[in-house]
């Protein structure tokens, strides 16, 4: 396997244009002769399928939900970045590029990031033209806010529903193409296998989730936009159905998986209330602008009502440890510190499996300083949501928060064209590894999904098809297609007929989640990772022996769907730990306890300035590592410090 990024050279601001000029095109009359499969209908997949259909290609688009409008992009709240500089506060494409490379802790590819910053401008134009009701100023111009500690106001938003509105824009564009007949939509279809023929991605095998029917779909190429893998942790802020199956199946067919250990833990989520908990809910980070984070100083106070703990006995640990940034330290720092105080026995809230995993986020000071009305205006919706879930009112008592997995920077390795290591396989959105390095800045995932979907993929897909022109015909009876079909059937059969069926798939998923959260979560060390690497294969064996799936494979069967996803998470989880163990440095969301300087992450550029791309070898314990070296011509690596 050879990793070639195909990134253009020369001045960074000309690279994308230069690349486009050198690319091949497909003439309009020839486009409808090409069949393209797009898996996923989120921001990346929805935008790509709509744009490719509009260009005249024959597109088939797939999603597991009952409608493409429900992809998990819908849940994004905060906003989307763009370097428009509408606020005249000195923003520019270069500054957004710079912030993103630095925010990613110097583990991303400069050319990709620059292109992302450039395209951010067009995304806003596109969304506005589609009718996305972004927030406006009284003068009628677009409003912005500053997000995630950025020094400029470059975040566009639609109330607390930015992801929903952007996705509906893409969904509407997609609907227009479905009506026009250029896109055929397959909702409630799950991709379970990639078809590779003659070294190229040529199709997928799906299972219809309504009828259980397994079908091959053959095409000229495949685009995966299937989202992230946060659900490997079982509890995360992702939707329940989010999975790694599409990318993992592709990985097993030869697509390298890059940087799997880079995951992002968001500091402000509602803590787990019990062992039955099915997911975690994110609360906007903006809460840290006015809330003060604390825990009791004394262990014996953790069960007291917070109102009864005197000021002197409260430990405002972020303010004390990071006087310059206080409660506004970056996501990873805030998350890790919550973990440490909880490990010290100072966590608050209910006991869940013997531990109290929560810290207070207190608005009492802000309310007395600004008045309840102001706080209600700023955070009313969030306070209501919190009360609906917990039954407590943050106007009266401090909120309880705790970190939760939220985003995965790792994903399938792609070159500058977003093509994976299997020719003809393209990957967009959260499913690929590009652009965010080891840490993603707030409001930049929506930007990346839409940049990939509207502006990059339509172009690079055309370039690929322009190069290959006609592919040899492939029919369903070809052995490459038949083996892929067979492997899906065998797997379904195996899942339904474990030798000693005992537990529902969730049982194993929860166990996996606990291992990964503990050993490959916010803070990692060699010993813990080695323990995880012993436990995961055992759990996987137990899963295949004892998983219990009721009902039949020829029917709507949600237990079977979940079992298949857990099976893949059980392999990906192992790769995450292998990658985390191998990366003997701390960077972004990857914090190795052995590599720190007084609690600050210690990067090791001399040895680890590379992308770790793992190749499947058939043995999950022994993947093969390939390295793509990273060089920084524009933004010189510096140390992050928030003290």
């Amino acid at each position, binding site marked *: 396997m050879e990793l070639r990024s195909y990134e253009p050279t020369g001045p960074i601001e000309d690279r994308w244009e230069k690349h486009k000029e050198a690319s091949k095109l497909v003439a309009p009359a020839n486009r409808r002769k090409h069949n393209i499969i797009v898996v996923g209908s989120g921001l990346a997949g929805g935008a790509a399928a*709509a*744009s490719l259909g*509009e260009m005249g290609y024959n597109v088939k688009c797939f999603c597991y939900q009952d*409608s*493409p*409008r*429900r992809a*998990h992009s*819908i*849940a994004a709240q905060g906003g989307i970045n763009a370097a428009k500089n*509408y606020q005249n506060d000195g923003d520019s494409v270069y500054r957004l590029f710079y912030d993103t490379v630095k925010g990613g802790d110097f583990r991303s590819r400069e050319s990709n990031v620059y292109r992302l910053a450039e395209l951010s401008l*067009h995304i*806003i*134009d596109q*969304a*506005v*033209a*589609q*009718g996305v*009701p972004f*927030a*406006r*100023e*009284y*003068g*009628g*111009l*677009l409003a912005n806010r500053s997000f995630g500690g950025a020094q400029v106001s470059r975040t566009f938003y639609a*109330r607390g*529903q930015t992801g929903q*509105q952007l996705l509906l824009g893409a*969904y*509407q*564009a997609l609907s*227009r193409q479905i009506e*026009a*007949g*250029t896109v055929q*939509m397959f909702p409630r279809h799950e991709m379970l296998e990639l078809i590779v023929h003659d070294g190229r991605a040529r199709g997928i095998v799906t299972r219809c989730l*309504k009828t259980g029917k397994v079908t091959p779909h053959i095409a000229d190429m495949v685009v995966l936009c299937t989202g992230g893998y946060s659900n490997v942790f079982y509890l995360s802020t992702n*939707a*329940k159905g989010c999975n790694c199956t599409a990318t993992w199946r592709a990985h097993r067919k030869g697509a390298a998986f890059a940087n799997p250990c880079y995951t992002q833990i968001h500091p402000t989520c509602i803590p787990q209330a019990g062992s*039955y908990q*099915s997911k975690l809910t994110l609360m906007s980070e903006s809460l840290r602008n006015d809330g003060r984070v604390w825990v009791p100083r004394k262990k014996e106070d953790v069960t007291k009502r917070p109102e009864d703990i005197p000021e002197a006995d409260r430990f405002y640990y972020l303010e004390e440890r990071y006087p310059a940034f206080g409660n506004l330290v970056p996501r990873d720092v805030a998350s890790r510190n919550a973990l440490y105080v909880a490990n010290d026995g100072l966590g608050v809230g*209910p006991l869940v499996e013997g531990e109290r995993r929560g810290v207070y986020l207190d608005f009492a000071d802000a309310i007395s300083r600004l008045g309840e009305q102001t706080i209600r205006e700023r955070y009313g919706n969030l306070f209501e949501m919190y009360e*609906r*879930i*917990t*039954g*407590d009112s943050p106007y009266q008592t401090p909120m309880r928060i705790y970190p939760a997995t939220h985003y995965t920077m790792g994903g399938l390795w792609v070159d500058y064209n977003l093509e994976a290591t299997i020719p003809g396989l393209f990957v967009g959105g959260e499913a690929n590894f590009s652009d965010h390095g080891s840490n993603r800045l707030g409001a930049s995932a929506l930007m990346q999904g839409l940049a990939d979907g509207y*502006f990059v993929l339509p172009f690079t897909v055309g370039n690929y098809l322009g190069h290959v022109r006609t592919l040899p015909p492939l029919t369903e009876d070809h052995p490459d297609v038949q083996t892929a079909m067979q492997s899906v059937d065998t797997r379904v059969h195996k899942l339904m007929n474990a030798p000693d069926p*005992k*537990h*529902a798939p969730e049982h194993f998923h929860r166990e996996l989640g606990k291992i990964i959260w503990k050993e490959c979560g916010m803070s990692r060390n060699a010993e813990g990772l080695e323990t995880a690497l012993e436990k995961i294969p055992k759990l996987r064996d137990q899963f295949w022996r004892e998983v*219990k799936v*009721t*009902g039949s494979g020829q*029917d*709507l069967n*949600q237990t079977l769907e979940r079992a298949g996803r857990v099976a893949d998470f059980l392999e990906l989880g192992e790769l995450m730990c292998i990658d985390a163990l191998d990366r003997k440095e701390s960077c972004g969301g990857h914090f190795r306890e052995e590599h720190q300087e007084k609690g600050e992450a210690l990067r090791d550029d001399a040895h680890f300035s590379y992308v770790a791309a793992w190749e499947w070898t058939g043995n999950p314990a022994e993947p093969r590592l390939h390295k793509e070296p990273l060089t920084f011509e524009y933004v010189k690596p510096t140390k992050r410090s928030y003290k």
Partner: protein
Amino acid sequence: MADELINVTLHVWRQRGPNRPGGFETYHAKDITTHMSFLEMLDVVNEDLIEKGTEPIAFDYDCREGICGTCGIVVNGVAHGPQKLTTVCQLHMRQFEDGQEIWLEPWRAQGFPIVKDLIVDRSGFDRIIQAGGYISIRTGSASEANEMPIAKEVADRAMDAAACIGCGACVAACPNASASLFTAAKISHLSLMPQGQAERADRARRMVAQMDAEGFGACTNHGECEAACPKGVSLEWIARMNRELVRAMVKSETPARTRNR
């Protein structure tokens, strides 16, 4: 946050598939903490059923935070259950009492055929959007966003209408199983925005025609839809849709557009 354990009895509509006979079956959910969400309570019941070798209750969900619109159960006769402005995935067990009997049914409407148990087919909603619920703008051809100022009040009102999550509770709650609130919300969102003007008349006409073709009933102003809507989508949009239709009729000298490729 007082933690309490309760027991509830569930009567759940079970139906193996479309056009198959269905009926209620009874399950006992024991030692349920009041901090559980309604769907987590069902998870617990289901996990128990699986371990006993019985097929679990099929119900739809994804985000579990009230935004994707996937979930939907009629709980004791009310779409999404007893709490106002709350999807069933955001409903928590503290809304119920110890010993309570709870009846769970799918959305019932001609336009939403049952798929299995509590799951229905809402693809009719997608086809209503495909019939014109968009603004035709080619990727990459948009002009600079701030060239067209839009009054804050207009954008805010459009956002109110655009907040619909497409869950279908309005249809389930309506005695006529009408999809008017859903359709009106999209027509209003787009017709309020200056970008949506060019296709305004055609859009209203075509979306309403599709709504009728899907077998959804007529609106006779019961207002049950608004009461059931988890996102507070207002009835005023239905009045607006009707005005849009009248306006479209006046303009109907231009032939209705056929499928535009």
